[in-house]
């Protein structure tokens, strides 16, 4: 029997047993729910438009109200108008936060609770001006055509060199979500690996296994099997996310969103490949589940540091730190995926980063594989790294 056939058998057991476990089903359901909620809920809450409420003293004429709404619409803003009989009532509403600003038409004055909001001020000013202009046009006696020509907007289109405002905020949020999802997945499946390896030692199954298969075959099979389960979970999430995107439309989401689904899958494979070997090897040092935490401290710390570095680089994706870290093994999967969510990463950069990760994972497999071999049959207290390294020497 070939090594590959053995690895496939070990991996298959891992997949079947894990996929059948309740923990896996529940965790998948939770991740899907959260991911879909992150997409669907924002589009329900505000419809994507900010809302301003204007209080008008002395009752708003329908002319003023419709002018406010029209100007608001032109500026991509929902305007609600409330009428108050006197200034005192309007100010009470302002203090209570029911309105953003109070317009006193008699005195041509805007009253604010505290700070003046220039956007809302310009909006109300424009609405009042529009009514004034209409009156003036009527007084001069222009024909409707003349009036329309006079008031036609210049029709300027606009473009931005960098994503600004809403788009940029969206991308920052997207990068954060993607990094969290990736980190959580790698940590969860890494944790499963640690306890899976310890379980085999604790139950002494490992002796029965290793009388038939080589330690490297067992390690490869376990890592691979767990990876397949992890990838399957992310695929399920990806499909749910894509479904949600189609359902609510991508208009309000940052432009990088659809592509990120694919990138997350890639970076899970790369990142999991790297970290899983360390997780599995950490597990081989312990013989009891009680030691799972303490043996995985180093790898947990490593992934946590990478995670926090990547969160730190989200706000400055083209800075030196972000660029360097997106090519270095422990941080690359998280930082690169964050940079991609922010946009503006070329394909060759991704290719180089993946190549560096693949090469270092290969080296790590050699290193960690030897420690695993040296430690896996040592039942008892925690195995020291040096002992494991030495006893694997053939």
């Amino acid at each position: 029997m070939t090594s590959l056939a053995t690895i496939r058998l070990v991996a298959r057991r891992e997949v079947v047993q894990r996929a059948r476990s309740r923990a896996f089903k529940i965790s998948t359901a939770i991740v899907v729910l959260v991911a879909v909620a992150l997409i669907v809920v924002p589009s329900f809450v505000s419809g994507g438009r900010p809302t301003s409420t204007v209080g008008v003293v002395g009752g708003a004429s329908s002319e003023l109200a419709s002018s406010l709404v029209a100007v608001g619409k032109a500026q991509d803003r929902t305007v609600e108008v409330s009428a108050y009989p006197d200034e005192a009532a309007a100010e009470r509403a302002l203090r209570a936060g029911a309105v953003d600003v109070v317009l006193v038409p008699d005195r041509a004055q805007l009253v604010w609770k505290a700070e003046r909001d220039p956007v809302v001020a310009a909006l109300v000013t424009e609405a009042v001006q529009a009514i004034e202009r209409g009156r003036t046009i009527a007084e001069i006696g222009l024909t409707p055509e003349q009036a329309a020509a006079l008031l036609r907007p210049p029709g300027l289109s606009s473009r931005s060199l960098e994503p600004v405002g809403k788009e940029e905020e969206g991308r920052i949020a997207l990068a954060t979500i993607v990094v969290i999802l990736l980190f959580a997945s790698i940590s969860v499946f890494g944790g499963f690996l640690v306890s899976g390896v310890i379980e085999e030692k604790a139950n002494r199954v490992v002796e029965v296994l290793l009388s038939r298969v080589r330690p490297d075959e067992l390690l490869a099979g376990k890592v691979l099997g767990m990876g397949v389960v992890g990838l399957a979970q992310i695929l399920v999430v990806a499909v749910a996310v894509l479904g949600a995107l189609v359902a609510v439309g991508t208009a309000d989401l940052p432009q990088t969103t659809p592509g990120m689904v694919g990138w997350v899958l890639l970076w899970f494979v790369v990142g999991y490949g790297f970290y899983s070997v360390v997780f599995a090897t950490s597990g081989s040092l312990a013989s009891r589940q009680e030691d799972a935490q303490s043996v995985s401290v180093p790898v947990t710390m490593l992934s946590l540091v990478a995670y926090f570095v990547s969160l730190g680089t989200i706000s400055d994706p083209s800075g030196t730190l972000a660029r360097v870290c997106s090519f270095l093994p422990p941080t690359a999967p998280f930082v690169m995926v964050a940079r991609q969510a922010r946009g503006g990463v070329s394909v060759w950069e991704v290719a180089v980063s993946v190549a560096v990760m693949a090469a270092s994972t290969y080296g790590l497999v050699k290193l960690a594989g030897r420690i695993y071999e040296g430690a896996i049959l040592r039942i008892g207290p925690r195995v020291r790294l040096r002992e494991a390294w030495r006893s694997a020497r053939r």
Partner: protein
Amino acid sequence: MLEVEGLTKRFGEVLALDGCSFVVPEGRIVGFLGPNGAGKTTTMRCVFGLARPDGGSLRWRGREIGEAERRRFGYMPEERGLYPRMRVREQIVYFAELSGLSSSAAGAAADRWLGRLGLADRASSRVEELSHGNQQRVQLAAAIAHGPELVVLDEPFSGLDPLGVEALAGLLAELAGDGVAVLFSSHQLDLVEDVCEDVVIVDHGRVVLSGEVERLRSASSRRILRVTVDGTPWVPRIPGVTEVPREEGRPRILVDASVDLGGLLALAGEAGRVTQFSFEPPSLSDLFIEAVTGGDRG
């Protein structure tokens, strides 16, 4: 034939194996006996590559034992090892497949052994739901389902009741009848008295006695007698005769070659009515004691 030759293994200060050599032929049941810590488990672990010997060689059918050979072996370690949450049949199939059986052959073998061991109705139970005894049966099935050429069992009889011992002994005899080489270890020599055809007795990492049980018995210079006078065990206080305290508390006596048995019977007759005066074949324990003390223990 399994050939173990000059195996040595040191754990720090402790010399676990000190030139251990013996063979296990096909179709024979070899009892690997000796007190705890004699090096039995270490030897077995070396056969399966679970421990690396410092010196010596291990051969199966004349070839150095490697991965390919080990796939045709079956091993049941003393510390039983199964996946507690995996189902019984799945588990046996999995181990058989790891040993190279196709999935259909593994399935058929699992069903056959589950039936043979009386576990057919527990096939889809999780291992953790089974009783201790049934878990042991699953463990055994996992060790032999793939049809190994050599079966190695570490302390398979410990914790079994007499009925269990008999059932397992029958099964091992069946395997040997099919040409399988069977090696099992035990520290309870009395328990496996009737099970093995051949024995290898180890002490302090070295083989002190090995061969066919019957031949070893007849070659023994020790004369063991059971004498009762008026229905109670009789032990004469004369030189050359010592008490061997054992076997359900009924004393036996070890009689030196220098003592004339006729005189001994006459002496017993003087003590009262002789109700029993019989030779006993030396037990495995007797042989062991004789071997470790060089036969000079009085």
